[in-house]
Structure formats: C-alpha cells, structure tokens
C-alpha cells in the first residue's frame, strides 16, 4: 500500500495531501493545469522534496520529515512513465528498456532474457534496434511503459500516459494499459485530463484543486463533478 501525507509550499498555494492507494488499485488524479498533479508524482518519486510529512510504500518509509528519511529516487523502486515519455533518444529501444537493469548491475544473461520477454509482450521485438527517437508515438508509449515495468516496481506512476497519442490509438492503448497495470498488481496513480481514461482505467478518482483533494469517489461519479475536471 502507498500512504501519502505531505505538505509542500508551492508558488501559488500550499500542497497538502493525504492519500492511500492499495495494492492492485489504480487511482486516477484529475484537476486543472497547475493544481499540483505532476508535482505530487514527482514528490512520490523523490524528484522533488516535500516540506514535511511522510510517504510510505509497503510500510517502508520513502520520506519522513520527522525521522529525517529521504530515499533518493534511484532507490525507491518506482516505475514512472513521464508525460513526454522521456525516452533516451541516443539509445535503441532495447537499450532504453535495459537501462534500469544495467543500472542495477543485473547479469547480462538475465538482462537479455528479461528485456526479450518485455519486448515480445509489448510487441516491440521487431523494432528493438531502432533508435528511440525514430519510433512512432504509440511505440514510444509502449517502450516507456516496458522500461518502467522491467524494474519490477512496487508502485507505478503515469503522467498523462495517452495524451501524446492520436484519438484512435488512445482507445486501443487504454484497454492495453489497463490490462498491463492489472497484471502488475501494484498500486498505481495515473494523472489524466481525459474522463474516458478515468472510467476505463481507474478504481477510484480524486479531483485536485489548488493542492488539495477537493472530491474523491468512484470513476463513474467523476462526470458529475462539474467543470473541475477540464
């Protein structure tokens, strides 16, 4: 389970959030631009530091201001898919996916075997040697997801995972993404602007407004929350 209880002073407002996400559960985060969604993901991933509070994953503190704990991002074991995908443009699809395992000094045979499995599962085997900069939007999305999943994360964070795709690909990827996340069985937080994502992939949803949870409920209810989701 992921437990979050943090505060951080942002430029225009204070972010103050208390959230729990259980194993296998997917939380959909919606809200206006600049309401603190991406900041929250960065705080959880350790890319940004809260002012105070506590973040714990499976009862292990990742950040605790009272105990002085602040685990660096490389040791948090969190799979993060960035909005722009942030694939390493100078590396091949294969090397992008193998990056996390190489950073962990995993033996080469094991890297080969695991990367191959992920490439095949994601339908990327044919393009494994292509430079990441040269593959299509949908393929980039799959590479980014496979790269995040191969490290067997204990938590998945996805920032607008479908926004860079055209509408037709979005529908197909939505179902695919949901299945992949379900198969992982870890807590997952997805930031989105799209109500279709919320109902198709979420177990529950939160509306963020100026750094606070303004509403929370079932994905089906989000449509009734009014204009806040835009």
């Amino acid at each position: 389970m992921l437990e979050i209880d943090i505060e951080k002073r942002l430029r225009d407002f204070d972010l103050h959030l208390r959230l729990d996400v259980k194993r296998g559960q997917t939380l959909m985060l919606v809200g206006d631009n600049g309401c603190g969604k991406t900041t929250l993901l960065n705080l959880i991933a350790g890319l940004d530091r809260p002012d105070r509070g506590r973040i714990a994953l499976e009862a292990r503190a990742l950040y605790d201001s009272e105990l002085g704990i602040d685990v660096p991002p490389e040791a948090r074991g969190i799979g993060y898919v960035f909005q722009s995908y942030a694939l390493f443009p100078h590396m091949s699809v294969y090397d992008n996916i193998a990056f996390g395992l190489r950073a962990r000094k995993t033996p080469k045979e094991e890297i080969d075997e695991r990367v191959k499995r992920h490439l095949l599962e994601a339908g990327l085997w044919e393009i494994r040697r292509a430079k990441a900069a040269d593959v299509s939007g949908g393929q980039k999305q799959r590479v980014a997801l496979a790269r995040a999943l191969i490290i067997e994360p204990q938590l998945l964070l996805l920032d607008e995972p479908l926004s860079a795709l055209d509408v037709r690909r979005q529908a197909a990827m939505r179902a695919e993404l949901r299945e992949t996340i379900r198969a992982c069985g870890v807590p997952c937080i997805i930031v989105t602007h799209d109500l279709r994502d919320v109902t198709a992939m979420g177990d529950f949803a939160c509306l963020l407004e100026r750094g606070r949870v303004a509403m929370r409920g079932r994905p089906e209810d989000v449509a009734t929350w009014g204009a806040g989701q835009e």
Partner: protein
Amino acid sequence: MTVDSNPAEDGSFRERGLADLMNQDHHGMQRAIPLPARSRDIALKAGLGLLLALAMSFIALPVLALFLRSPLSSIAEALHDPMVLDALRLSLTTSGLTTLVVVIMGTPIAYVSARFSYPGKELADSLIDLPVIMPPAVAGIALLMAFGRMGLAGHCLSSFGISIAFTTLAVILAQVFVSSPFYIRQARTSFEDVDVALENAARTLGASRMRTFFYVILPVAMNGLLSGAIMAFARSLGEFGATIMFAGNFQGRTQTMPLAIYTAMQGDLDVALCISIILVAFSFAVIVLVKILTRRVYKRC
C-alpha cells in the same frame, strides 16, 4: 420586422461583399507594382547583392592572396624550416593540452551553471565570460601580474622554486584563459537543451547522479560539447596577444604558430606565409566540423 429586416441586411451584406470584392480587385491592381516601384525594387536587390559581394570579397580576397602569394615549392621548403616545425609541434601540443584542460574543468562547471542556482551565480557566469571581451594583451598582462615571478600567486609559487612565466606552461595557461569561455558557453547551452525529464527518468530507473550524467546527459549533449571543444582548440591555436605578453617568444618553448608568423615577418616572408596557410587550413577544417556537429542534434522523444 425581423423577417423584413433580414433580406435588407442580407442585401447590404451582399452589396458590401461585392464592393469588397471590387475593392480587392482594385487593390490587387494597385499591388501589381507600377514601373517606378519595380525599378526601385530591382535597385534595392542589386544594392544588397553588391553589398554582399563586397563583404564576401573583403573576406575572401586576403585568404586568396595568401595562397596566390606563396608558391607551392616555397611552402614545401618552409615546411622543413626548424622554426616552422617547432612552432607547429608546440602549437598542436599546447592547444591539444589546453583543450583537454578546458574540457575536463569546464564540463562540470558548465553543467552546474546550466542546472543549478547558487549564491553568486550571476557573478560566476560573468567572470567565466569575461575573457571573451577582454583584449588578449590585457589578459597577458593580467596573467603576468598574477603568475609572474612578482605576481600575486607567482610570488608564493616562486618561493617553492616554481616559475611559470615565459615557459610552455605559461603558453597553456594563456590559452586556457582566453579559450575556456568558448567551450563553457557552448557546453552550458548544450546541457540546458537536455530535457530534465531524461535525467528524472534515469534516476527513477535506478541510475545514480553520476551514472545519469555519463550515460544519459553527456551522450545527448555530446555534439554541442564537441563543437565547443573544437572552438576552444581553434581559439588556442590562434592565440597571440596573451601568449607573447605572458610567455614570451622563444623558439621551441613558447613560440607558437601565430608568434612564429610575427617573427618570420621580420625576415623571411615565405615562412610567414607558409605558417599562415597551415592556420587557414585549420580554420576551414574547424568551421566544417562545427557545422557538421551542430546539425546533428537529437530529436526529443
């Protein structure tokens, strides 16, 4: 009422539309440039063309003159001149070492400058850029005042028996001083262009700061860094003012190619021309290399 007014409005719209169309036609005819305007246009283009031709010949003529004034035989002969060989060897080794020092010291400085803010950053950035606008002769005097035997730091060093001024080390110091901004500025821009999301992605995937730097940031910024290093090398190769002030003009020890040209001018013009042509060839190679490298920039993904 509304029904009545609509057709009227409609009509007026149509009329206006027609009038607009006619106006446009009228304008269209107006826009077709009348003869005096057309000749003015031609005159303007011809004037600009002439200006460009003048500017190009102003740069090309001296280069051409260099090649025309020095027959191949005399160049080949001059290449055996010990002074030319010494200067060539010294220039290449000092510029190479300078580039190495500038890259090793400048890369972390450029990265920190691109990514972090710290107290006094503005001042530090301005200091780094200062040698670009400082006249080289002033840089030479300044270096002498700092590292000369009586200089601020040189005084301490000389008490340990270390003397820098008028040695090959002084040549390198002068070159580092004047050429480092060329590398650091370019490297800073290249690092700024690397998407922060790439760094963040590498960190969350388990890479330490060092691994992220060497495996992600450095390769993505590499073309920019290389072209910066080439610019710094070229600047070192051409360095004259600071070197002659701080290192002197001793053949085989501090007499680099520009200094050798200056010395040869007082005796054998052919030798001066020969060295000049070698330097021009280097300059051309540098421009071509930098152009090729800066064209190959990684697409974001």
